[in-house]
């Protein structure tokens, strides 16, 4: 018997006391999925909780986003920036005009890991923001780019639109499901990379971007 058949046979043997079929009746789940959670003002809490992770948070109007991006990049003292191919044209132009070296990722000729490692910062949009946990969720579509883009550069400037922010994890999971069904990977980001591996004391900044700068566009 091959390994698959043998393991399945073992599992079935182990479960011979369990009635097959009728899964819902045999093992009910009472949970109500996808419910909003009570957090008060969703945007206020989102901003507060992102900041709890020691990430920078800026709230501004849609029109001010390009300016806020440039200010964020200047504050982080970066000289080179990579952006995904689908990033808003206005945002892109603002970066170019600020005099920083801009690289627009080309899917047909992507940067190597080493090349990407030479770039200071990345600017992207997001898919969902979650207030209760202060989490940014990426589904890596065109305005966020492939996963390595938001991982290797040390500074990540992420623009979240107000209408993308939901109350809690259940609503976020519901919003993200279509992307997963379409085969997209997801990255959930709660603050900059961190570790608590030494004496359980939290240290911000390990392998992922050490600076996370979130712009909430209202």
């Amino acid at each position, binding site marked *: 018997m*091959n*390994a*698959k058949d*043998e*393991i*399945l046979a073992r*599992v079935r*043997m*182990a*479960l011979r*006391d*369990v009635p097959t079929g009728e*899964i819902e009746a*045999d*093992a*009910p*789940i*009472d*949970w109500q999925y*996808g419910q909003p959670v009570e957090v008060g003002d969703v945007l206020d809490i989102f901003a507060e909780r992102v900041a709890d992770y020691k990430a920078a948070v800026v709230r501004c109007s849609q029109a001010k986003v390009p300016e806020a991006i440039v200010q964020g990049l200047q504050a982080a003292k970066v000289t080179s920036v990579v952006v995904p191919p689908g990033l808003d044209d206005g945002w892109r132009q603002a970066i170019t005009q600020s005099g920083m070296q801009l690289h627009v990722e080309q899917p047909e000729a992507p940067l190597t*890991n*080493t090349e990407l*490692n030479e770039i200071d910062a990345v600017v992207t949009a997001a898919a969902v923001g979650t207030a209760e946990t*202060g*989490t940014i969720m990426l589904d*890596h579509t065109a305005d966020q780019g*492939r*996963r*390595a883009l938001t*991982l*290797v550069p040390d500074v990540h400037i992420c623009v979240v639109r107000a209408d993308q922010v939901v109350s809690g*994890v259940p609503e*976020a*999971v*519901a919003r993200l*499901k279509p992307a*997963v*069904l379409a*085969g997209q*990977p*997801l*990255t*959930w980001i*709660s*603050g900059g*990379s*961190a*570790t*608590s*591996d*030494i*004496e*359980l*004391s939290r*240290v*911000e*900044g*390990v*392998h*992922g971007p050490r600076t996370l700068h979130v712009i909430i566009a209202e």
Partner: protein
Amino acid sequence: MSTDVSRGSRARHDAEPARRTPAPPAGDLIDSPRFQEAVKVALANQQQRANLRHATTTIRGKRARVVAELDNWQELRQAGEQIKTRVGRHMPDYLLQFEENFTKAGGVLHWARDAEEANRIVIDLVRQTGEDELVKVKSMVTQEIDMNEALEAAGIAAWETDLAELIVQLGHDRPSHILVPAIHRNRAEVREIFLEEMGRYGTPAPEGLDDEPAHLAAAARTHLRNKFMRAKVSTSGANFLVAETGSLVVVESEGNGRMCLTLPQTLISVVGIEKLVPTFDDLEVFLQLLPRSSTGERMNPYTSVWTGVTPGDGPQAIHLVLVDNGRTKALADPIGRAALRCIRCSACLNICPVYERAGGHAYGSVYPGPIGAILNPQLRGTASEVDRSLPFASSLCGACNEVCPVRIPISDLLVHERHKVVEAKKADPPHIPHTAEPQLIKAASWVMADHKHLEWAGLGTMMGSVVLGKMLGIEKFGAMPAPLSRWTSARDVPMLPEQTFRRWWKQNRGDQK
């Protein structure tokens, strides 16, 4: 091909080429001493006890604070229990559903009956890439199957990239905690390990490195950066497998996971069959339960979800090795199978007064603490001394039951595993060496089955105690002979009273009937 990964080939020979990665301590975990013996060493290690007390106290406080934020925590725990119970009871459906969706998305699924088969599959996959090294995301199951050593024996270097696992690997050490494998080390020890060992295996620690955790983390970042950039192959575990979509989920903090899951060309994930959840929606439950229970955060810094191969993004060769390695044995026990709900958060370790003082190494397994005391005998059986001792490595205080995010009745399962050990003792006494315990218990059971027996026993003990006390002119007992000496070596025990309650009742209320 399979022979070179067997345990035997790990014995050091002079002719053997030098190792690629730091050697762990000699010997197999399964040969560890009984828990109560191992504990003596741990209790004598004052540094480790201080480290553990500090760390577990910190994490307990963090967990309590973030759990208190959620009004529906108990409902979430119940949902976690129910979802995992559904998976456990209908595993064949979910395994096949997962296989279909994962394969459709371009993933290649491999099945492994045991550790040896899993390691052989991984070695073959790595060899097919032509590479001789890989970077690793922290994973319990790869610890369980001792994958690093199997790879080393096959000439493949596996580099741990989680900070704590790196500390353990560079320290020629073993993990002692599910979430924070180096919890037994403090900052000064970590600094020494980094200064001493990093240079031997890659980018050295910066000169003048101090013991500030932020600086130590920065040293790890620098040490591993080059390994991430050049790695062509990586391995991971997974926190969840989603049957409905064929997705894998990895929950982490440092970004080393994202590096391993994203940058290499080939990704090989090794995952236990119990990691399934039925639907993507179920993640809304577990991604609330897990971070709050494990690191005591509202959300861990990074969570990655991937579904097979994504063209133009991340590894283009995606493998998954699904591992049994004893899980179906655990599943076959209708009571014990509740332990397979475990999502490896380690809240039960952090709350456990025994773990806090013993540390993880005393459990002789990669799964320490209360959950390990159940899982190890379930997965490995009770043939070894250590596995027979583990169900007894608890005072049954029940603190773990209250924090478990999937409501595993840990104390009940410990008692259940004790019963299985006792049944094995009774069934095969010559095979399993033991004390006079079954006889003593049998005698005590006879006493307690009838109140007359209890009265006689009480009278005998009492008279003995009183006579002895009068003869010696003392009011309490200090040191006593074995087996009671185990108790009185550091405690004073009062003399037994001259009258039982039963006699008091007869004399004072006896006329009521």
